[in-house]
């Protein structure tokens, strides 16, 4: 009998480990880890939902020049302090300024750049995601 219990256990372990790791992020949350972790900071989480309650897509994606591509804008702190990208609003006038590091740099260490809960991140393998690349 211990033999069958062990078998069942093995099956259970296989089934459980086959379950996809459940990230339950909000639809459209963008995680950016281009430079953050190399520089000793947590990756950045950009919550799309929070921003779209306050701004229409056009403000960032047309006026500020954000490309429709996670991590494709090569944003760094220098650009932000110069008033580009996030810095157009996160300057202490429209929204909080760059001093509040940990409000943006709040991602789990080790997380790769991606749009969470997106169709591509759910359906495609890592290598295919790069091939599919959704550049504007």
């Amino acid at each position, binding site marked *: 009998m211990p*033999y*069958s219990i062990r*078998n069942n256990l093995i099956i259970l372990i296989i089934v459980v480990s086959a*379950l*996809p790791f*459940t*990230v*339950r*992020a*909000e*639809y*459209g*949350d963008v*995680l950016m880890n281009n430079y953050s972790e190399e520089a000793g900071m*947590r990756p950045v*989480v950009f*919550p*799309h*939902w*929070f921003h*779209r*309650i*306050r*701004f*229409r*897509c*056009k*403000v960032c*994606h*047309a*006026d*500020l020049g954000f490309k*429709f591509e996670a991590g494709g804008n090569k944003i760094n702190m220098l650009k932000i302090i110069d008033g580009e990208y996030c810095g*157009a*609003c996160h300057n202490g006038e*429209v929204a909080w300024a760059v001093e*509040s*590091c*940990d*409000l*943006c*740099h*709040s*991602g*789990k*260490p080790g*997380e790769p750049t991606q*749009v*969470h*809960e*997106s*169709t*591509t991140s759910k*359906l*495609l393998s890592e290598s295919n995601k790069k091939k*599919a*690349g*959704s550049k*504007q």
Partner: protein
Amino acid sequence: MKAQSFNLPRSPHYFSKLIAVSSLIFLTTPWLYAASEARSGIQIYDVYCAGCHASGVLQSPKLGDKQDWGEREKQGFEVLLTHAIKGYKNMPAKGGNPAIKDKEIENAIKYILANSGLGQYGKKPTSNKTMSKAAEKNDSVKTKPAQKPKTSSVNSFNRLMKSSAEWNLPPAEDGIHDSENGGTHMLQKPKEAFESLSSSKSGNRVDWVKALKNKEISPRYDRLSDEVKPIVMDLNIIREVKGSMPDVVYPHKQHTEWLDCSNCHPALFIPQKGANQISMASIILGQKCGVCHGKVAFPVSECRKCHSKQKPLKKAITNKQAN
């Protein structure tokens, strides 16, 4: 393992025991079934109703559509219940499953109404509310953290589908924020923000277009000014599709409410009839419509939001005749 059990020596009573046990199971099962409590609204909805009422098949009112359900609810709950039990227009009696108990149908309707913004059909019975109030008053009793809402076994089995307990989690629990980071706990919780917004069945569980239309949100069109109004273009583009799916209606109106022309034209879509090759495969790969739909705008699972223009049906396959 099997081979082992076949070689086991069987006692002379083996078969009589087997018969006794199996007849016991046989006899008690119907009794247990009859005595089992009526299933909850969500259990019934997920298994029997969602097939049509999640997406609005056959002009059925969709879960979450306050207007549609509100109109029906005005006729009185009894009318709704009768229609659901006996059938009405496209709605088959008990959704085509006569085995469902009347009480269960009632639960399902209450669940649908409660989740379509008709608050009086709230999920908690009043007795529970008074109990929790009493608990709050009693200082010595510490209130327990809110239990996660029960989800049906059907949904929890489907590994690809998030149960409602996993929607709109606070940043610290969502798996991508570092809960050890101080700032994480200062961020707004999605549920708080979405509470007053029109709901949908996918994405953020918010119907963003409806929320904007109903002025539940007023996002700026300009970085600095609340006064700048979007340049809205009201022009529908109809794309005929090859398969049996309804044709696609692309509404410029809803898109220009949010976006600038330059966001799509000419890089994603050449503004010329017939110049753009679009396939579902490319959309799922994050191209064309998939640049937004499947990332921030409603995902491709909402087929009928785009494929919304019914092709002229041939007489032989109309629904009524089929029935």
